[in-house]
């Protein structure tokens, strides 16, 4: 019960008490506290005025008044005690007093309402606080989804509640981000660590997932993948280079082996898909080509020497000697092969025509062996010589040559054959009507 009310009521009670006790001048003093009380004061003082003027009336009124006052005193006391439902009867047998009583009741009701209002507000505040307290506790405990009701039947409280919920939502979001970021970072780091380990172990295909639910981390992950790919490419490149080197060396080794074995045409491929290695390969090929050229040259020279020697030997072995004017002698020495025989034939005929030798003596005394082709050439030589216009005489046919000619079934008909060169020469002189005689004197 408000102190002011008590005080206010006291201001009414005291003068009434005094009047009843006999102090008929007692009146109600200033009572601040609203229009109703003021009106009551004024009216009560009027009554006291009237009561003072007219005892009887006053007496009568005094009786009702006493009832009324008692009633009113009772009600106020009750209210003070906390019974906000207290009210006066407003039935005092006096119209004026009854009306006052009614007014008092309205006031008491208003006070009750106000008091109840206050209590209600207090209760809502208490509820709101309790609600907020509960929500925060839940949030602190980890339930970030906890919210206040913000429905307290009070606009202000509701608004506050709404703000609190905003804050809680924010906190929840931040916490999620924080939480998520934390989780994302951990995932990412684990993933990268794993990938690097794999690459270290030799798995060049290792890569990170790049999907951590965080744009920034994902981007980092992608960059890391590019780096890993580049590392892989470099590694493969190195391996590839090593492989090519090995291939190149293998190729060179093989080629040199062949060259050593005698094949001077062996070359390296010089196609190793590596500029440097290809260049080396070309250089090696140049060396091999030079080697071959030198070898060819030496062979050629050797062959030339051999040819010269054999030619010399040939010439030595089958010289064509002009033994007399218009008489040629061809002593054949050694083994005559068909190639030599053909050469001999050509050479002899050229010489015969050039020197216009009418007689050729082919001496076979020095011939140890003769093959069929050569024998054939010999016969041809004689026949060709005859065609050209030179008589051919064969001398010195030994047993071996004779056997060969016989075996071949060669016909020596028409061919003059004599024992040796001397006989051949004599015959030649004879055929040419030449005579050797001693000088006279």
């Amino acid at each position: 019960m408000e102190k002011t009310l008590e005080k206010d009521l006291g201001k009414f009670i005291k003068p009434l008490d005094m009047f009843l006790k006999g102090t008929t001048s007692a009146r109600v003093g200033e009572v601040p506290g609203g229009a109703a009380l003021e009106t009551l004061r004024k009216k009560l003082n009027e009554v006291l005025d009237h009561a003072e003027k007219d005892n009887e009336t006053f007496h009568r009124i005094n009786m009702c008044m006493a009832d009324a006052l008692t009633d009113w005193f009772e009600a106020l006391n009750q209210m003070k005690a906390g019974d906000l439902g207290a009210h006066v009867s407003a039935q005092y047998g006096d119209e004026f007093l009854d009306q006052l009583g009614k007014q008092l009741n309205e006031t008491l009701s208003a006070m009750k309402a106000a008091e109840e209002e206050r209590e209600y507000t207090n209760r809502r505040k208490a509820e709101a606080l309790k609600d907020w307290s509960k929500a925060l506790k839940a949030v602190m405990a980890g339930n970030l989804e906890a919210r206040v009701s913000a429905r307290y039947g009070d606009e202000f409280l509701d608004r506050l509640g709404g703000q609190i919920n905003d804050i809680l939502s924010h906190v929840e979001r931040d916490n999620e981000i924080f939480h998520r970021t934390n989780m994302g970072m951990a995932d990412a780091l684990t993933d990268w660590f794993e990938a690097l380990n794999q690459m270290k172990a030799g798995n060049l295909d290792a890569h990170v997932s790049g999907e951590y639910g965080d744009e920034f981390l994902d981007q980092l992950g992608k960059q890391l993948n590019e780096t890993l790919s580049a590392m892989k490419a470099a590694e493969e490149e190195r391996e590839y280079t090593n492989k090519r080197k090995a291939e190149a060396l293998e190729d060179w080794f093989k080629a040199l082996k062949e060259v050593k074995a005698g094949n001077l045409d062996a070359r390296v491929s010089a196609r190793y898909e590596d500029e440097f290695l290809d260049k080396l390969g070309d250089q090696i090929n140049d060396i091999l080509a030079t080697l071959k050229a030198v070898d060819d040259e030496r062979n050629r020279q050797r062959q030339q020497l051999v040819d010269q020697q054999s030619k010399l030997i040939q010439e030595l072995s089958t010289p064509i000697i002009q033994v007399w004017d218009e008489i040629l002698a061809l002593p054949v020495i050694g083994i005559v092969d068909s190639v030599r025989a053909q050469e001999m034939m050509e050479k002899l005929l050229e010489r015969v025509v050039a020197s216009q030798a009418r007689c050729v003596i082919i001496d076979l005394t020095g011939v140890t062996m003769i093959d069929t082709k050569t024998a054939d050439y010999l016969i041809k030589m004689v026949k060709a010589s005859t065609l050209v216009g030179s008589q051919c005489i064969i001398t010195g046919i030994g047993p071996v040559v004779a056997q060969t000619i016989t075996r071949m079934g060669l016909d020596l008909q028409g061919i003059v054959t004599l024992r040796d060169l001397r006989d051949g020469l004599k015959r030649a002189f004879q055929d040419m009507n030449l005579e050797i005689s001693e000088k006279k004197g």
Partner: protein
Amino acid sequence: MQRDFALGVIPIIRMKGLLLVPIQTPPSDSQARQLLEDLLDAVIATGSKKLVLDVSALDMIDSYLTRIFYDIVNAAGKLGVKAAIVGIRPAVAITLVQMGVESFSVDTFLNLDAALEKLGA
């Protein structure tokens, strides 16, 4: 020297009872045939008893020409003419021998002197 008969490309030179035929270029088959006719006419016309074919300018004598030569020599022989061939080149001789031609059934000589010596100029 008189070139009495020059119907064909190949000249036939008459000298001292001798007919000399220098074949300068390889004759075609018709030219060779022509030579045969001309020669026989010439023999009859001149009454020559000797005939010399000079082939020193030829580096080849093919089988047809070889045949013509045979015919000339045979025909001349029938007419009582002694024939001779001079100047067969070495390469030609070798080829002929390898072909199997050993002679033209006529004497062959290195040069005209040798031929005339044998033919009895």
